[in-house]
């Protein structure tokens, strides 16, 4: 068997291959062939089979239809071509889209057999004309918002109660979402018809659910498994608190000064100290009991009413520069001291 190694090209520097052309001992069978070859060319051993690869042509599948794109008119109704959500089909979408990350300089891959384009949800079924036509069809089920309720004040005036609830739509093993059962009721305390005692009792009954800054009572219900049940429960809570706040129990008469939610100057030590000071000035100091202190009319004392107002505002509204300044003005007037100079 004759083995011939093809001489490597002078251009490529292949250190591995040895440039050798040599013949082993040949058999007698192909000696006749050999004589013919010697005149023409040596047979070349093609290890990499490059020539076969170059000659092989890609066989076109005859059963594949021509692209739908080629038969599409430019004025077609796209809504009929893509009626619903569908994976991207490159032969049906007449757009030259490219998608994918490639290093700098290269063009992104085309749309045919592009996995990235097929993975991502497309909105080809919701083009603007399709949305418009679908909304036109849905308009018959919609109603208009009443014209007279065009401001927040009018809505709050006529519809003061707010019910807040959430709905969830997402992929999940179950269509139920336990968070959907939560119902929140919000109402302004000023909209409920309550008198002084009942507002105070209502605030105490409701506790943390009342926000004094916004005057909103927020009642949340999530203890029942369904939304309807929680809605009923929330309405029941509001009704119960409302009616209970109008009830006057016997033990409520035992309310002391410590339980009071606001500062009443007449019942407190400030009045007593003022009266004591006033009487000491007049050298009429006498020991009085509680009723006499309460009954004492402070209009006799000069600037007494202003002092009373300043102390009441200080204790009720809290300490801030304005209340402290008013208090200082009132005390200076009471004692007859000059006012503080403002630089």
């Amino acid at each position, binding site marked *: 068997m004759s083995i011939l190694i093809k001489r490597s090209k002078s251009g490529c520097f292949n250190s591995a291959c040895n440039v050798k052309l040599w013949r082993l001992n040949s058999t007698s069978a192909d000696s006749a062939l050999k004589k013919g070859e010697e005149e023409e060319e040596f047979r070349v051993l093609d290890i990499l089979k490059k020539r076969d690869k170059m000659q092989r042509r890609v066989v076109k599948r005859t059963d594949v239809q021509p692209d739908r794109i080629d038969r599409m008119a430019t004025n077609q109704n796209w809504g009929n071509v893509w009626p619903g*959500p569908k994976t991207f089909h490159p032969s049906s979408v007449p757009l030259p889209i490219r998608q994918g990350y490639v290093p700098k300089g290269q063009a992104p891959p085309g749309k045919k057999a592009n996995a990235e384009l097929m993975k*991502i*949800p497309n*909105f080809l079924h*919701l083009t*603007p004309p399709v*949305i*418009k036509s*679908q*909304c*036109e069809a*849905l*308009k018959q*089920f*919609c*109603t*208009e*918002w*009443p*014209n*007279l*309720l065009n401001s927040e004040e009018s*809505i709050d005036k*006529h*519809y*003061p*109660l*707010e*019910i*807040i*609830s*959430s*709905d*969830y*739509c*997402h*992929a999940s093993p179950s269509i139920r979402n336990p968070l959907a059962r939560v119902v929140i009721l919000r*109402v302004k305390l000023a*909209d*409920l*018809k*309550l*008198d002084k005692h*009942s507002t105070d009792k209502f605030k105490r009954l409701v506790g943390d659910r009342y926000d004094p800054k916004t005057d909103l009572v927020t009642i949340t219900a999530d203890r029942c498994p369904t939304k309807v049940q929680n809605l009923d429960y929330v*309405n029941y809570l*509001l*009704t119960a608190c*409302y*009616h209970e706040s*109008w009830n006057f129990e016997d033990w409520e008469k035992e309310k002391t000064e410590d339980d009071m939610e606001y500062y009443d100057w007449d019942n407190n030590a400030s009045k007593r100290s003022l009266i004591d000071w006033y009487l000491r000035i007049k050298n009429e100091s006498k020991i009085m009991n509680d009723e006499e202190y309460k009954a004492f009319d402070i209009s006799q004392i000069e600037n007494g009413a202003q002092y009373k107002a300043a102390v009441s505002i200080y204790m009720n509204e809290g300490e801030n520069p304005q209340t402290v300044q008013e208090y200082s003005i009132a005390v200076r007037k009471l004692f007859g001291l000059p006012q503080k100079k403002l630089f």
Partner: protein
Amino acid sequence: MNAIRSIWRLTPVRGVTIPNYAIRSLSANTTALPHAVEPVVPPVELDKLYKRVELEMRGIDPAVLLSYSWFCVAAASHLGIEVTKSWALRKAEKERHTLLKCVHIYKKHKVQYEIRTYFRFIHMQRLTGSTCDTYLEYIERNLPEGCALKVTKIECQKLPEHLVPPKKESEE
């Protein structure tokens, strides 16, 4: 509109017709006719009023969320719904897990995974119940894959009629 609403308020139909019928039967003085079957009128259900409807969309791809919110806003404008605000958080919420790379030992070599959730919000105001239900059904049916929707509805109602101060008992 409020006047029309008050007219549509439920009045029990039966309570109105029966006395008339009773009077008629007394005066007619005829043999007892079987009572005509009165058509039962179902109670008129008033349309709910939603002060605000807030959509919150969560997804893994911000481009998909953007397309979907564009679709929601377009549909709202066609149906005559006021869209007050539509915005997205600048960054995603990332949930990170640091796990050991190897099944057994090699504590120093760990691998980190993260799940990114993108958010988008749309706020609408002043919807009626039927408009809201129609719109939400349309939106929810076209929710793309990989997205979740949370709808918060703030409904405004009248105060219940039974919340009135108790009447003072008449003095005896």
